[in-house]
């Protein structure tokens, strides 16, 4: 997922990188990935095409014909990039935006749950970090639980959250958002504990000479100092939030969202649909990370960054 999200990185970011003369490496990587993908398509679909030829009692074929056939199957093991692109175009521009068959509609459903979960996750992560940094006893009491929470497989816990919340009347957006929260508070907590503890002793001493309160120390020193730790954590968290939302869509019977498209695709062996949903998820992650990156740069400039 990370390679694809790099390929489909946020356009503004691509433009800036091009301006800085990094366009060539980016284009090289893109080309390499596409080449590998096409090679994979031929390699992985070869067996199926051969089977098909045997069934059709076809005895002679040219290499071009064979390669073309591996790339035009209806249910390939691995669809070719242009097949995915065609499916993307059809499902984004071929149907009305509000239609349940439009991929953007599903991406929006997933994004809204992920976004809400990301918001909750940040709040929870920051709150936990503040508590841990200020109450030394909590570090021992809380941190093991925070870490243990992440060793539980999401796939195992997601259906339980959906079912439990469903039984008390919460359906739709919220349960999915909570799964996102569950995944993405963790990097934020870890990053912020580090960030809030990052001020140097002399900076803390300075505020001590002003007899600043703990709250003032947090506001004037710890929080601003932690920002350079928060943003990298947020980039990890936002990708996890999208994964969480997708996983949350699987056990609900898959009515809407990218998760639903993945599930429906695998029911009917629609690999092209699966892959186009995967690409959509990657673009979504890449764009979200790009947005956070823009926010980081903006804040960095405002706060006197040297870049």
């Amino acid at each position, binding site marked *: 997922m990370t390679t694809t999200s790099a390929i489909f990185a946020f356009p503004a970011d691509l433009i800036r990188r091009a301006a800085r003369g990094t366009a060539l490496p980016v284009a090289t990587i893109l080309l390499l990935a596409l080449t590998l993908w096409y090679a994979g398509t031929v390699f992985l679909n070869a067996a199926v095409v051969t089977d098909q030829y045997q069934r059709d009692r076809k005895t002679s074929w040219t290499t071009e014909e064979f390669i073309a056939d591996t790339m035009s199957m209806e249910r390939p093991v691995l669809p070719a990039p242009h097949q995915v692109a065609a499916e993307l175009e059809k499902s984004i521009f071929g149907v009305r935006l509000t239609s349940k068959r439009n991929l953007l509609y599903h991406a929006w459903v997933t994004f809204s749950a992920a976004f809400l979960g990301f918001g909750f996750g940040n709040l929870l992560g920051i709150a936990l970090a503040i508590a841990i940094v200020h109450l030394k006893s909590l570090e021992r009491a809380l941190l093991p639980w925070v870490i243990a929470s992440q060793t539980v497989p999401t796939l195992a816990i997601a259906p339980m959250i959906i079912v439990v919340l469903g039984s008390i009347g919460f359906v739709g957006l919220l349960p999915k958002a909570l799964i996102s929260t569950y995944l993405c508070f963790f990097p934020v907590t870890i990053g912020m504990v580090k960030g809030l503890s990052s001020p140097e002793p002399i900076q803390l*001493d300075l*505020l001590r000479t002003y007899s600043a309160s703990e709250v003032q120390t947090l506001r004037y020193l710890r929080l601003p100092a932690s920002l350079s730790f928060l943003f990298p954590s947020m980039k990890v968290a936002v990708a996890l939030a999208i994964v969480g939302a997708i996983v949350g869509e699987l056990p609900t019977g898959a009515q809407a969202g990218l998760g639903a498209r993945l599930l429906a695709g695998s029911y009917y062996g629609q690999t092209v649909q699966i892959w186009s949903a995967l690409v959509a998820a990657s673009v979504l992650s890449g764009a979200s990370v790009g947005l956070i990156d823009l926010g980081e740069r903006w804040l960095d400039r405002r706060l006197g960054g*040297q870049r």
Partner: protein
Amino acid sequence: MTTVPQPRPEDGNSLKPGCIPAVEVKDLSLVFQTADAPVHALSHVDLTIEKGEFVSFIGPSGCGKTTLLRVIADLQQATGGTIEVNGTSPQAARLDRAYGYVFQSPALFPWRTVERNITLPLEIMGLTKTEQKARAKRVLELVNLSGFARKFPWQLSGGMQQRVSIARALSFDPNLLLMDEPFGALDEIIRDHLNEQLLDLWRRTEKTLVFVTHSIPEAVFLSTKIVVMSPRPGRIIDIIESSLPRDRTLDIRETPEFAEIAHRVREGLKAGHSYDDH
């Protein structure tokens, strides 16, 4: 900054004996427990600093100048003896925001502009925005950095950063200023200039100044009292009451009186070193 106990008008001359001293240290010791051997950073230190005095600590590196200043500021706790600041415990004085502290390094917040670094204590103390701006402007003029209000610390040289940190300590107008080698990183010319500015400020406002330096001429030029210290264990080996008048200009450095005091400081420092060789 209204909580600082001001000398009341009827006190008259704040140098008058009987007035509560700004700092009173009796038989103070401080031992750092380190992994290997304990470090005797301060040993049996006795010192009284009257209100309105300009006191310099001078001594070789590691003799405990910073440590003594930090004890006065309640940033470090003594392990023996007693200390009072403004007649109360250092902690009470700190909570009262009774002093301004200039650290050995600038300790500016990199995400704040020069101006907002200076207004930091004012924000914490709850002054109005206009008052904050006015004070920042005034102290920036005092340290000759008027044009740099909107710059960020990394855009300034080390010496300029140190001047910002001095301006920051002056911004809330504390009656007691604790300065740890504030001019160490500055060139001779700007150092002379700031020495004069500081002396002028001290005379006008009757503040109490406690000043750490490595420079004998600087200590003699500025101080009414020079405290000569020596290391291992950190202790006071001489306290010199200056005979120079409170009103002085840089020319005073050419007088025989000045040379005489400087000589005594140098002798004290030498004595501290020879003790070290045993």
